[in-house]
């Protein structure tokens, strides 16, 4: 394995990898490029060099304020993830360190709650939200997104906790730690990388959620998914504008994803790697 890889070989792999990477990334890249074109350029055929105009961004911003939905997206995705962590950490602790015969079934069952097609339950949920006054509130959506992502959070934390040797928790118990001490002082800090990656993944999932966030909001709590929904225009192909709006909607999470790539990979594995 550690034999010298010849330079030519390395260059060959590099070229192949870059081609694959660019092909995969191309749609996003092209959307970004298009967002910097004028509308005429945008539909004028293949062209990788835009005129670098920001008029589409200005148009988008003047049509719909970006800041409020952006803030809503941040609050909803981070809030729901934190809520989910608060519920999921104890559950994952219990399942990882005090497993019963049914632990795996419970985990599967949790995942299976994600199988209900959202549209089929829209009316019940809509009515519940109306009756409880949660409609178009951040808190309502935060709770909903928390519930949607809870199975994934529990699952990820569970696989992560299982890697932590039980002896360390026992040591803490011997050292006089109560259960609370054990979770607060030992388990949580030790699982920080795992918790961080769980947090990241769920922020992304919540950020990209585009059904409930549109159906259950009007103005107050509408996040970027709703912002995007107002840009595929019925009158004309405003692709530059659409691209600009899309870029604005995905940029924050894309950048977050890029920066936390390594961290994310750890959490993503769902216990796939032992």
């Amino acid at each position, binding site marked *: 394995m550690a034999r010298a890889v010849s330079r030519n070989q390395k260059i060959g792999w590099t070229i192949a990898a870059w081609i694959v*990477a660019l092909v995969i990334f191309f749609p996003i890249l092209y959307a970004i490029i298009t967002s910097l074109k004028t509308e005429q350029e945008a539909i004028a055929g293949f062209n990788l060099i835009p005129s670098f105009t920001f008029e589409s961004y200005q148009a988008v911003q003047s049509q719909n304020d970006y800041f409020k939905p952006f803030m809503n997206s941040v609050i909803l995705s981070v809030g729901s993830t934190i809520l989910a962590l608060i519920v999921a950490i104890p559950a994952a602790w219990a399942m990882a360190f005090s497993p019963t015969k049914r632990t795996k079934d419970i985990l599967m069952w949790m995942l299976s709650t*994600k199988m209900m097609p959202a549209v089929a339950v829209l009316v019940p949920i809509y009515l519940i939200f109306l009756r409880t006054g949660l409609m178009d509130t951040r808190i309502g959506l935060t709770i909903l997104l928390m519930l949607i992502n809870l199975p994934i959070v529990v699952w990820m934390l569970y696989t992560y906790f299982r890697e932590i040797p039980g002896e360390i928790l026992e040591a803490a118990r011997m050292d006089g730690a109560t259960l609370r001490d054990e979770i607060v002082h030992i388990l949580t800090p030790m699982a920080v990388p795992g918790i961080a990656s769980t947090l990241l993944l769920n922020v992304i999932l919540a950020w990209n959620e585009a059904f409930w966030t549109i159906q259950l909001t009007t103005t107050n709590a509408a996040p970027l998914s709703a912002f995007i929904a107002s840009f595929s225009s019925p009158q004309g192909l405003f692709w530059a504008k659409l691209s600009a709006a899309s870029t604005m909607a995905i940029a924050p999470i894309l950048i977050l994803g890029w920066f936390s790539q390594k961290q994310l990979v750890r959490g993503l594995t769902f216990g796939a*790697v032992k």
Partner: protein
Amino acid sequence: MATRQTASLARLMRAPAIVLLLIWMLVPLGMTLYYSFLNYNLLNPTNTSWAGWFNYQYFYTDPAFWESIWNTLVLTLGVLFITVAGGILIAMLIDKPIFGQGIVRILVISPFFVMPPVAALIWKNMIMHPSYGVFADIAKFFGAAPIDWFAQFPLFSIIVIVAWQWLPFATLILLTSLQSLDGEQMEAAEMDGAPALSRFIYLTLPHMARAITVVILIQTIFLLGVYAEILVTTNGGPGFASTNLTYLIYRAARLNFDIGGAAAGGIIAVVLANIVAIFLMRAVGKNLD
């Protein structure tokens, strides 16, 4: 670990998550079940009546029903195949020593961060559009007639888009798995005279079995629920060529505002999805231990 104290504590700590999810499952499910036995159209709410099994009968006699089940299968399996096979190849490629490895990885995982409707819009308008898309430009460049992807190969086009979104997920999990492959094993196989392809078949693939299982399991759950991409691109057409089960329910719920029918469809979908899930767990679940 195993004292009575900790066991009872554990029960207490599991409870909130389980109770929350139970409520989150049972309340909507119960209401949906109830609705599925009603003639209930949102546009005519005053005219609601008991329907018995009619909604179910109506749903599965829908001319699109069997085709949609077939499409759901093709879509799920197609995406799984592309993402797993592609994921393995890409993971192996970016695991090699290359220049700019970090950037390459970032580029490869990016599609994962794009909202499904946005992804569908980009592909539909800028990539696959028969007049303005990049594919059309490429076809024209080679003097071929541009292909109208969504009309000619609707399901395939959707598979491509969904696979593009999920490829990073598969690639990442498989990559991490690949990195945990024991170098000595590979060396041992090399000393045993195994050429690269044999090493891949006999060592790398079996090693990744667990990761592949996880990819299949998690993705299946998400793939069964794909509809936004269909809605944005083909609207389920032409004909029913790209209608899957979830989209069929969507159609009932959002175009016909037929709450009873959509509820019945939802129940049918839940039952089918659970059958698939149980089947999957039986088939591959032991890989997870």
